[in-house]
C-alpha cells in the first residue's frame, strides 16, 4: 500500500486528523493534528489492512520561524512506521508549538517509543504527556538546555569543567572532575540489593551502566543507563556538512563502520540523485560483507567469552586480524574505514586484494567447523543459552529489534532482500532465521546461531561478488553536495540490523537534521522488559546475544 492509499484510509477512519499530505518529499509524510495523534496511531497499528506494528523511529526537528517569514515556527515530531507483514510504511508528523511543545505519548502502543521519546525530550525538549518516565536519556540529568534546538547556546562550564577546547587550552588543564554526571534516577526498591553494573564492566561491551535490583543472583529489574559515550554526532553533522560527516559515521558503529558509511552515502546520494558506477557497488558490497563477517566474529566470540570460554574469542580474533589486513589494503584503515564517497568508493579494490580475499575464504570456511567443534555444541554453552531470554516474534517487532535479533525470533526480514539497495538483488543468499536448535524460538542460542549462519551467507555473497565484479570506474566525480530541501530515510542491513539514516536537507551544504537509527538503541529497550527473573549470569548472556555496542546507542 502506498503512503497515498494509507492517507485515504486514515482520512476515512479519522476524518479531520490529517492536516496535510506532503507527497513531494522522497518519503511522503502525513501531517497530523497533535491532539489526534494517538487516535490515528492506534488505528494504524490495529487496522487489519494496515498492521503497522513496527515503529521504526521517533525523532524531532526544530524549525524556528525564519526572521523574514510570516509563518510561525515549531517543532516537528516525526514517526516512521512500517509493517513487516504487508511491506508498507508511512511517516507521520505533528507540528508543535516551540514555546510549549507537548504531545501525547505513543509508548504504550509501541514499547520502543519509550526511549525514542526520552531522547526527543532530552535533545529537543518535547514533552510527551503520559510517558511513564520522561527523564533525560543521553545528556546528564542536570544538564541545562536542549542541544538539538537551533537556538541552543552551549553553557560555558558544566560543574566547573570547561566545555570548549579553547578554554581547556587556555587554562592549561581541566578544572575539576565533575560529580557523578548520570544520576541514579530510580529509587532503590525496598528489600533488594542495588548493583551498578557498569559503566566499566567487562560484560557491558562498552560504557553502559545497568542499574540492577537483585535478590541474590536473581534480578528483580535491570534498568539500562546510557549516554556515557554520547558525542553528539548528529549535532556535529549539522555543523560539518555532508562530506565532513562521513568519517564521523565510522564512529557510530566501530565494528561495522562500512555500514554506517554506506547508509550515509546512500542517504546523500538519494538526496542528490547520484548514480553509482557498477564497479563501485561491487566494491561496496565486498567491503561490507567482509565487515559484516568481522563484526559477527567479534559478536559470537565475545558472547563465548562472556560465558567464560576465552579460547573461541581469540580464535575469532585471529580470523578477524586477516580481515583487518585485507581492509587495510582496501581502504587504508583497519577499524574506521571512511571508505565510501558520494558516487563511489575512495579507491578501487585491486586484483591482488581480491586474490587475498579468496585465499582467506578458502582458509576460513573450515575454520567455521573448527569453531563449531570447539564451542557451538558444547553442552555447558548450549545450556547457558538455550531457553534463556526468549523474545517472541511479536515482542521483537514491538520493541523494534532488527537484524539478527529479529530474525532469530523467526521474522524473516533482511533489508538486503526485502528493501533492496545497492546490487544485493543480484546475489543468491538465504535469509537465516531462528530455528530453535536447542531451546525455544528466539532464545539467546538462536541469536548466536543466526549470526554464525549469517557469516556463511556473507561468504556466499562474497564469492559471487568477486566472480562477477565488472571492470570500470570505482567512483564518479560528484560536486560538493548541496541538495535541495528534501527529506530522506535510507537504510542498510548492518551487522546489528537495520542501520537507518534520516536526513533533512535545506538547500545548503550542511544537513538541517540528521538522525541515525541504529540496532543497538532499540535492542537496549527490551532488556528492561526481559530482565525480571533472569539470573545475573543470564543478563550477561542476554547483553552478549543482543550484540549491543555502546557508540551505536549513544552516538
Amino acid at each position, binding site marked *: 500500500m502506498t503512503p497515498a492509499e494509507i492517507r485515504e484510509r486514515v482520512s476515512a477512519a479519522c476524518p479531520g486528523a490529517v492536516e496535510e499530505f506532503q507527497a513531494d518529499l522522497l518519503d511522503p509524510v502525513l501531517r497530523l493534528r497533535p491532539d489526534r495523534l494517538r487516535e490515528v496511531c492506534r488505528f494504524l497499528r490495529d487496522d487489519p489492512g494496515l498492521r503497522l506494528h513496527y515503529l521504526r523511529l521517533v525523532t524531532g526537528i526544530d524549525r524556528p520561524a525564519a526572521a523574514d517569514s510570516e509563518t510561525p515556527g515549531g517543532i516537528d515530531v516525526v514517526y516512521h512506521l512500517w509493517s513487516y507483514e504487508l511491506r508498507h510504511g508511512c511517516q507521520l508528523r505533528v507540528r508543535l508549538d516551540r514555546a510549549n511543545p507537548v504531545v501525547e505519548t505513543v509508548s504504550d502502543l509501541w514499547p520502543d517509543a519509550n526511549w525514542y521519546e526520552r531522547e526527543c525530550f532530552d535533545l529537543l525538549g518535547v514533552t510527551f504527556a503520559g510517558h511513564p518516565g520522561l527523564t533525560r536519556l543521553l545528556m546528564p540529568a542536570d544538564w541545562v538546555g536542549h542541544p538539538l534546538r537551533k537556538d541552543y547556546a552551549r553553557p560555558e562550564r558544566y560543574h566547573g569543567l570547561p566545555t570548549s577546547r579553547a578554554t581547556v587550552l587556555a587554562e592549561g588543564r581541566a578544572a575539576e572532575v565533575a560529580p557523578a554526571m548520570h544520576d541514579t534516577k530510580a529509587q532503590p526498591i525496598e528489600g533488594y540489593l542495588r548493583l551498578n553494573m557498569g559503566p566499566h564492566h567487562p560484560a557491558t561491551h562498552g560504557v553502559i551502566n545497568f542499574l540492577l535490583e537483585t535478590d541474590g*543472583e536473581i534480578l528483580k529489574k535491570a534498568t539500562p543507563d546510557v549516554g556515557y559515550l554520547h558525542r553528539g554526532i548528529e549535532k556535529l553533522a549539522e555543523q560539518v556538512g555532508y562530506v565532513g560527516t562521513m568519517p564521523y559515521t565510522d564512529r557510530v558503529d566501530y565494528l561495522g563502520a562500512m555500514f554506517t558509511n554506506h547508509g550515509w552515502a546512500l542517504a546523500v546520494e538519494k538526496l542528490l540523485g547520484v548514480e553509482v558506477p557498477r564497479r563501485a557497488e561491487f566494491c561496496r558490497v565486498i567491503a561490507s560483507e567482509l565487515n559484516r563477517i568481522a563484526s559477527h566474529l567479534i559478536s559470537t566470540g565475545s558472547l563465548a567469552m562472556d560465558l567464560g570460554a576465552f579460547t573461541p574469542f581469540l580464535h575469532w580474533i585471529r580470523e578477524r586480524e586477516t580481515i583487518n*589486513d585485507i581492509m587495510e589494503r582496501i581502504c587504508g584503515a583497519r577499524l574506521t574505514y571512511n571508505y565510501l564517497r558520494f558516487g563511489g568508493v575512495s579507491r578501487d579494490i585491486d586484483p591482488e586484494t581480491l586474490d587475498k580475499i579468496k585465499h582467506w575464504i578458502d582458509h576460513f570456511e573450515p575454520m567455521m567447523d573448527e569453531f563449531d567443534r570447539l564451542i557451538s555444541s558444547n553442552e555447558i554453552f548450549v545450556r547457558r543459552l538455550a531457553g534463556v531470554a526468549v523474545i517472541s516474534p511479536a515482542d521483537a517487532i514491538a520493541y523494534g529489534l532488527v537484524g539478527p535479533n529479529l530474525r532469530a525470533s523467526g521474522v524473516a526480514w533482511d533489508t538486503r532482500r526485502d528493501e533492496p539497495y545497492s546490487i544485493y538483488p543480484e546475489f543468491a543468499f538465504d535469509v537465516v532465521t531462528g530455528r530453535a536448535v536447542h531451546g525455544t524460538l528466539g532464545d539467546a542460542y538462536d541469536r548466536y546461531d543466526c549470526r554464525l549462519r549469517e557469516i556463511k551467507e556473507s561468504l556466499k555473497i562474497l564469492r559471487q561478488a568477486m566472480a562477477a565484479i565488472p571492470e570500470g570506474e570505482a567512483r564518479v566525480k560528484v560536486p560538493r553536495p548541496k541538495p535541495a530541501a528534501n527529506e530522506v530515510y535510507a537504510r542498510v542491513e548492518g551487522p546489528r540490523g537495520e542501520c537507518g539514516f534520516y536526513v533533512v536537507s535545506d538547500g545548503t551544504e550542511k544537513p538541517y537534521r540528521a538522525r541515525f537509527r541504529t540496532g543497538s538503541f532499540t535492542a537496549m529497550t527490551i532488556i528492561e522488559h526481559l530482565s525480571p527473573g533472569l539470573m545475573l*549470569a543470564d543478563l550477561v548472556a542476554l547483553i552478549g546475544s543482543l550484540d549491543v555496542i555502546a557508540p551505536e546507542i549513544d552516538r
Partner: protein
Amino acid sequence: MNIIQHVANLLIRSVFHADPASWPWTWLVQAVVIGIAAFLAFAFVAIFAGPVSWIERRIAGRIQSRIGPNRVGPQGVLQWLADGVKCWLKEDLVPAAADRPLFLAAPYLVFTGMFGAFVVLPFGAQVVAADLNVGILYLLAITSLVVVGLLMAGWGSNSKWALFGGVRSAAQLVSYEVPSAFSLLCVVLLAGTLSTQGIVAAQGGWPWDWFIFRNPFMFAAFFLYFTAAIAEGNRTPFDLPEAESEIVAGYNIEYSGMRFLFFLFAEWANIWIMAAISAFAFLGGWQIPGIAPEQIAATKGWEFVGWQALSWTIFLVKATFLVFVVIQIRWTLPRLRVDQLMITCWKYLVPLSMLMVLGVLVLLALVPEGGGADTILRGAMVGLGLAVVLVSALRVRRTFRVDREHYREMEGRDLWYPPYRLP
C-alpha cells in the same frame, strides 16, 4: 617412622653422639628439623605454583593459537619471577571503607588453607611432612579454611561484587565438599585407614593394583572426586567466584600487589594439591611397579636414596599429568550458571557419590580381595580404562589430522596466520 624423625635421630646420633630415645633435647632437634622441612615445603609450593603459572599461560597460548609469555628468560621460563617481583613492588592498596583486619588477613588464611594441605601429601616412600593417622580428615578440614578466607575477602572488601564472589565461593565450596568427601570415603573404605601413606601402601605399583581400577564404583568415584575437586579449586567450568565477565573479578577485586598474588598463588597450589590427592588416593601414588614398600624401607645408603627419588618422580609425573588435564579443561570449557552449579552438585554428584560408597561397601562384602572375582573385576576395569584412553587418543588424532590437512593446504599463502607451534 617418617623421614623427619629419621633425619632428627640421625642428626642426634651423628652430631651429638646421644641416644635419641633418652636424650633430653630430642624435641628441640625435631622442632628444628620440622621447621626446615616446613620451609622446604613452602619453597616447593612457591617454586611449584610459579612455574605452573608459566606452564598454564604457555599451554593457554598454544590452545588459543598465540605464543604466550616468552620474553623473560629462555622461552619465558622466568616470567613467574618477574611477575612476583612486580607484584611485590606494587602498592598494597586497602580501600578506605574496607574492614581493615578482615581485608588484610584474608589472603593469609586462604594461603594457609592451601599450604596446610601439603603437610600430609605423600611425595615418596618416606617423604611426607607428617603421616597423620587422620590424614584424609585433616585434608578435608584444612582445605575448608579457604572458604573462611574467601568469605572474609568478600565481606572485608566492602564491595558488592566482591561480596557476590565471596558468597558464591562459600556456597560452592561447602556444597562440593560433600561429593568429594564421599568419593574419598570410598578410598578410605578400601584402604581401611585415614592415613595418606596407609592409602598408598594399600595400593600397588601396577595399574591393576590402583584403587581406580579396583571396581566400577571406584572408577566412577575417581571422576566424581576429580570434578568436585575442580569445583573446590574454583577452576573453569566452576570458576563462578571469580567470573570476570559476570561479577568483574569476584572476591579478589579490591586486592592489589602481593596480597592479590597470594590468591592466585593459592589457586595454583590448589591445582597441584587436587592433582596430588587424586594421584595418591586413586592412581597408586608413589608406588613403584614391581617393588613393595617394605623392600624399599629395607634398603640402605644410595640404593635407598635412589628408590626414594624414583618413587618421588613417579608421584610427580602422575600429579603433573593431572595438572595438565585441569589446565586443558580450563581453556576449553565455558562456565556454568550458579543454579546449574548447584544442580550439578546436589542432584547428581552427591547422590552418585553416595551410591559409590554403597557399591564399594557391597563389593567389599561380596568380593574377597585376591579371589578370582576380584581379579576378573580388576582386569575388566583396566581394560575399560585403556579403552577410554584409546578412544580419546583416536579422537584427538582424527581432529588433528583434519586440521593438519587444512593447514598444509594453506601453508605459504598470503595473509595466513598459522596456529602457533611450540618450538
